[in-house]
């Protein structure tokens, strides 16, 4: 398989997309009305101090010069300094990104596992009560915004039925594992801290569930439709005609081609989770990058805004490449056409 060339081309293409994104965000962040330097220093700062800060941020230069300075430091791993926390932005991101990634990974896991499961059940028992129940749930799940689900879950579990915690990533009093990846579950697993692992999983459950429901039911519907469509195809009839047992026909010859569209959509849903997690992070007091991103936007913290958007852009790109690879692995037609056969 000549995957590496395909991968290289995808990567090259992504670099262009990310550069384009950076130009757009860079300009928009600077077009927002109001002077970031004044906003950072407050109304009582002297005009000289504001001017000095503007000069330091290159805000007194034309925008393309500013962009050039910005790009140069980004390549040196420097995203500038937050005007508020006065810390390098990259440190903020290192602090908040893993929490969101962990949340999104679990939400993605829920979407993949339960979405496929419900979709397969729905197709297998098409037009019976099982299918009807799943379809009604799907309409509800897709139509209800994640934050509404979050509020319902918080009310239900936080107030009446306290099995799952609804605040933060760890219970107070539980010592956090040493920080290796920033993903609490992984860190506690690596350091063998089982108590922290269980506690972190419990904390993840409700926010990940509320974040995943919309996508989960979307996956279920797509899986159902694609399985029912393929079930009428000749290749399924042919597999039966060659004496292959029914369970193998379904679980192998029908299942694999049917989940290809699900996997593509799953990738998109997963990538957009990370940006859309804001309200869920707020409600569950989750120290994530979405919440951080909204805060810096409200404060016109221009360096941080650009950095957050770029980080989300990179995550989005990486996830998309991974999904394309999985789809190419599942579907030889894509793989072989890429090779020009």
């Amino acid at each position, binding site marked *: 398989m000549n995957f590496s060339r395909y991968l290289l081309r995808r990567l090259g293409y992504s670099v262009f997309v990310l550069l384009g994104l950076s130009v757009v965000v860079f300009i928009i962040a600077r077009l927002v009305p109001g002077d970031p330097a004044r906003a950072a220093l407050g109304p009582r700062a002297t005009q000289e101090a504001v001017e000095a800060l503007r000069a330091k941020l290159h805000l007194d230069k034309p925008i393309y010069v500013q962009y050039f300075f910005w790009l140069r430091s980004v390549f040196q791993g420097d995203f500038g300094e937050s005007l508020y926390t006065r810390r390098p932005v990259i440190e903020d991101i290192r602090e908040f990104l893993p929490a969101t990634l962990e949340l999104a990974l679990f939400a993605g896991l829920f979407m993949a596992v339960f979405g496929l499961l419900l979709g397969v059940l729905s197709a297998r028992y098409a037009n019976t009560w099982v299918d009807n129940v799943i379809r009604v749930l799907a309409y509800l799940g897709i139509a209800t915004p994640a934050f509404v689900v979050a509020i319902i879950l918080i009310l239900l579990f936080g107030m009446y039925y306290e099995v799952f915690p609804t605040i933060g990533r760890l219970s107070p009093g539980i010592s956090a594992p040493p920080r290796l990846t920033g993903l609490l579950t992984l860190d506690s697993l690596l350091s063998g801290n089982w108590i922290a692992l269980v506690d972190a999983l419990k904390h993840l459950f409700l926010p990940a569930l509320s974040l995943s429901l919309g996508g989960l039911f979307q996956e279920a519907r797509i899986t159902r439709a694609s399985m029912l469509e393929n079930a009428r195809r000749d290749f399924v009839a042919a597999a039966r005609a060659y004496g292959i047992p029914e369970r193998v026909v379904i679980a192998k010859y029908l299942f694999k081609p049917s989940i290809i569209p699900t996997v593509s959509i799953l990738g998109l849903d997963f990538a957009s989770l990370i940006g859309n997690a804001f309200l869920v992070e707020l409600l569950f007091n989750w120290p994530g990058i979405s919440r951080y991103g909204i805060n810096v936007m409200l404060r016109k913290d221009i360096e941080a805004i650009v950095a957050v958007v770029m980080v989300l852009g990179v995550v989005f790109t990486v996830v998309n490449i991974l999904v394309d690879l999985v789809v190419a692995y599942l579907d030889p037609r894509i793989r072989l056409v890429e090779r020009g*056969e």
Partner: protein
Amino acid sequence: MQDVLLDVQNLVVHFRVYGGYLKVLDGVTLQVRRQERVGLVGETGCGKTTTMKTIMGILPKPPGVVRGGRILFKGRDVLSMRPQELEHLRRSGISMIFQDPTAALNPVFTVGEQLEDAIRYALGRRDHASVREVALSALQSVALPDPPRILESYPVQLSGGMRQRVCIALALAYPKELLIADEPGTSLDVTIQDQILRLIHRLAEERKMAVILISHSLGVIREWTERVYVMYAGTIVEEAKTGELFARPLHPYTGALMRCVPKLTGTGIAEGIPGRIPDYFDPPAGCRFHPRCPHCMDICRQRKPQLFPVDENHRVACFLFGRNSRG
């Protein structure tokens, strides 16, 4: 009859569609004897594939519904078989070469994966080496070059002719008693189609299989079969020894089929017959051919003609012939 292998009686199959049913098969009756080569001819959409899929128990349900009739294979009722019995039937009894090889091959598995699975379950063999050996010899028997490479290939990597051969290898990877060949090679050019038909003929002889050969082309039917069924709009309208049918076509539909010269390519036997195949949603009452029939009588609009023997080797479903008008 002792040597009857397949006996289909009055098969009625409908398709559920929005707002009602397509009443496609309207009492199909046919028999196949051991080692016999039987042809089935009729214009596109008359229900040939539907009949064959029902015989193999692979009619997609929904939308398909079997409304009546009986299918006996070696005296055993196929329609009431349990799933395991059906699997057994497909492993040792009947096999089918699908009309469109591209659609019949699973796009996301290699040829080897599909072929080896079929062999593994049919022969109940677990060890990979012997399954692979059978797979390679199946590909050899259909004259495919470089079998090891074909095993590794995905269907998209093969030409149309190779896919067709792979489908034959799949259908005949292990011994069967009846082979259904649904328009083999129609999608290919004429020389390759001829090679494919020769191949099927040779394999059938070697393995003492009966064959049902479906075709649009009367030329193909005449060359390769011993007995023919003519199908029109979900019913068998005429049945005869091949030579007899071509010498003395009785049903007005058969006559029309023969008069319009079949084109070398394409499926256009209907071109020469005025009118179209009827709408299955609301099919004509009585004889389904009556709206297109030049000899249409009153009774044709009211009653459905049954297959009636005009002599030992020739039966026709038409009121123009004999006592059929009474019963």
